[in-house]
């Protein structure tokens, strides 16, 4: 019954998208043909021009040869590109997509032993420990592709190559033809939920993600297959509204159950105001709901139920010039999961209700090519409910972490970062004193960055 209505509603949504699109596709075909014809003509004349230039040069060369009587003349003929380049994406090799490769690698040191690192989990939140090893780590060599597909779509893909293999992190189409203010994103993408979630790792201000993301969404964040619709109303200030229908494969939030089709749904709103000439505020709430079936909560258990995740983000940035900026960024996140948890070895079923939250506050000061940052992470500031059949489980002290960071940017395309974490997140009484020395370098045509 529910399944049927899902199907119906999806059809409805697609219908809306297509009514918009067909109208615009047909309008544009004539324009495109005209444009192509013009381009062809322009190229013909360019070829003619080049041929006559070549002729002229040949004649000149002959003349020089005759005059000097020498055969050993090295002529420098300037190579003319076949296309008049320019345009927004500045592609010289006309139809190749813009490609870039970003290497993100770091040296890691900690007072913990290797096995302690592997079990450095957050009891009550996640059971997985830390992934990185002492010594040298390759986070990824990430390949980015982007280009307009046609006058109707742009295509983006993020393909990190790690030592384990190749992954399709993101691959999506963005519409450019929908009526003013509306845009759709289709494919696999980082959800617009919250602030940190949609940022690529090489743009993070710290090596690692905020603790609250690791604890509530897993360290990869909400990165899902689905459809996103965003709307930018014609207001005097920036306000973006978005809705998402996602497959729901995030292991912690939604999990394994593919039989349900799209089963995670999100909405977010972001508003931004300029304060004075140099200051900008960006803030807004996000919410995500979905059905959950996951093995991620406790060892040898399956949880079946539903999840609600909510967040509020706040960013203030003051940037008087390229060489100076100050940023304050914070997010508060709240999660409720309710359902049944089954012990897979004994088959006993218990009711589980957990309501947990967390926040981070980070600040960055940039001067010249240097950046300095501090971050504070805290879990369970207000809610630490973990109820098994109505009985609260206590896991110990509130997990928290404090970080300090210094970075140097030799150019726009490279970065060297030193970071220290004082990490009390594993509730064992132990402290993880970790130091990262990170190197990031990017080559190729990289897409412009958003705010």
């Amino acid at each position, binding site marked *: 019954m529910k399944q049927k209505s899902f199907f119906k*509603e999806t059809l409805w*949504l697609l219908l*809306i998208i297509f009514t918009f699109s067909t109208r615009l596709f047909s309008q544009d075909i004539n324009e495109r043909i005209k444009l192509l014809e013009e381009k062809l003509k322009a190229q013909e004349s360019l070829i003619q021009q080049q041929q006559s230039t070549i002729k002229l040069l040949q004649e000149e060369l002959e003349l020089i040869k005759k005059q000097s009587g020498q055969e050993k003349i090295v002529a420098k003929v*300037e*190579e003319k590109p076949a296309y008049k*380049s*320019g*345009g*927004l*994406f*500045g592609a*010289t090799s006309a139809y190749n997509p813009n490609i870039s490769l970003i290497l993100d690698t770091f040296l890691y040191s900690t007072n913990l032993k290797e096995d302690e690192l592997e079990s450095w989990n957050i009891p009550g939140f996640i059971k997985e420990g830390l992934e990185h090893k002492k010594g040298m780590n390759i986070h990824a060599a990430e390949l980015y592709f982007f280009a*307009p597909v046609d*006058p109707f779509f742009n295509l983006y893909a993020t393909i990190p190559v790690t030592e384990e293999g190749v992954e399709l992190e993101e691959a999506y189409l963005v519409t*450019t*033809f*929908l*009526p*003013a*203010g*509306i*845009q759709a994103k289709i494919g696999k993408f980082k959800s617009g939920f919250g602030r940190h979630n949609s940022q690529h790792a090489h743009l993070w201000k710290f090596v690692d993600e905020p603790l609250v993301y690791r604890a509530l969404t897993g360290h990869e964040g909400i990165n899902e297959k689905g459809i996103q*619709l*965003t*709307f*930018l*109303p*014609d*207001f*005097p*200030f*920036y306000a973006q*509204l978005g*809705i998402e*229908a996602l497959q729901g494969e995030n292991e912690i939030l939604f999990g394994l159950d593919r039989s349900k089709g799209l089963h995670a*749904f999100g*909405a977010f709103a*972001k508003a*931004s*105001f*300029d304060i004075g*000439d140099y200051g*900008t505020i*960006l803030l807004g709430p996000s919410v995500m*709901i979905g059905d959950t079936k996951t093995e991620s909560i406790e060892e040898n258990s399956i949880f079946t139920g539903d999840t609600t995740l909510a967040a509020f983000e706040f960013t203030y940035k003051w*940037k008087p*010039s*390229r060489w100076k900026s100050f940023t304050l960024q914070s997010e508060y996140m709240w999660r409720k999961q309710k359902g049944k948890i089954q012990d897979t070895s004994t088959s006993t079923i218990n009711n589980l209700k957990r309501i947990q939250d967390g926040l981070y506050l980070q600040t960055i000061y940039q001067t*010249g*090519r240097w950046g300095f940052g501090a971050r504070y992470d805290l879990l369970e500031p207000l809610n630490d409910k973990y109820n098994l059949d109505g009985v609260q489980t206590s896991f110990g002290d509130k997990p928290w972490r404090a970080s300090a960071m210094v970075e140097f940017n*030799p*150019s*726009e*395309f490279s970065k060297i970062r030193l970071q220290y974490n004082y990490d009390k997140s594993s509730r064992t009484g132990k402290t993880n004193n970790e130091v990262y020395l990170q190197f990031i370098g990017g*080559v190729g045509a990289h*897409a*412009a*960055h*958003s*705010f």
Partner: protein
Amino acid sequence: MKWKIIKTFICVFCAMAFAGNLSAEINVVATLPWIGDIAKQIGKEKVSVTTLVKTGQDPHYVEAKPGLIIAARKADIIMYNGLDLEIGYLPVIIESSKNPNIQPGKIGNFDCSKFVSPIEKPSSVDRSMGDIHPLGNPHYHFSPASILAVAKGMADTLAEIDPTNKSHYQKNYQLFYEKWQEKMAQWKSKNLVGKKFIAYHTLFSYLANEFGFQIAGCIEAKPGIPPSSGDIKKIIDTANRVKPNAILFNVYSPKKPVEFIANKTGLKTILVPHDVGSLPQTDDWFSFMDKVISLLSEA
């Protein structure tokens, strides 16, 4: 419940999307101040112009702030410098604006550099040379010949978007052309031929080409990367050898290396406006050029 919320959202989307902008003026969004100024001179009261990059800002490094995205949201046409100058922010502004009028390939996506023959186009590039512009030097707003061609292009394109006011745009272009001729005669009479300068950045190449002076070297040896002590030593050697008239810098150039070189060489420094409005008495493109040429001719 879920679906009700989602449905409501979609309905709000559709309703708001069709409530379009009904004002009569053509909404021009220009990236740089000089582009906004030329658009004003060609469009006058028939256009309303918003400029994204502030007058004191380095046009190479601008952030795609939400405020800029909302400005582009309402544009009938977006006019930009091109030659990759705005590559770090404009593509994301245009896409995030969700405005179909200004997407690449549309008439509302106006690349001023289309009307210009770029100079200093490197035959091969890689980023060991710094953030070099592979399509050529993008600072052609110092070139009167290029600006005239851009103004013509703007008049034609505005006439195409707004055909009822075609004669208005043509007339304004004619006025622009007449003023341009008059000013050109004045500028050419100020003799810059044979002068030599050191500049912070490769801003003045077009001007040097067209007015016959020489840029003997740039303090910023690799674009976008602050000069190393070796670069500075080299430029001091160059200065001692070629004896330039002055060092040229602009409001967003780092002061320290400029002052250091001036002290070492005894050369005077000239703060040259880099764009319309960046210094007093540079309110439009003509007065901006007046100021630039008179500053250089007095050196």
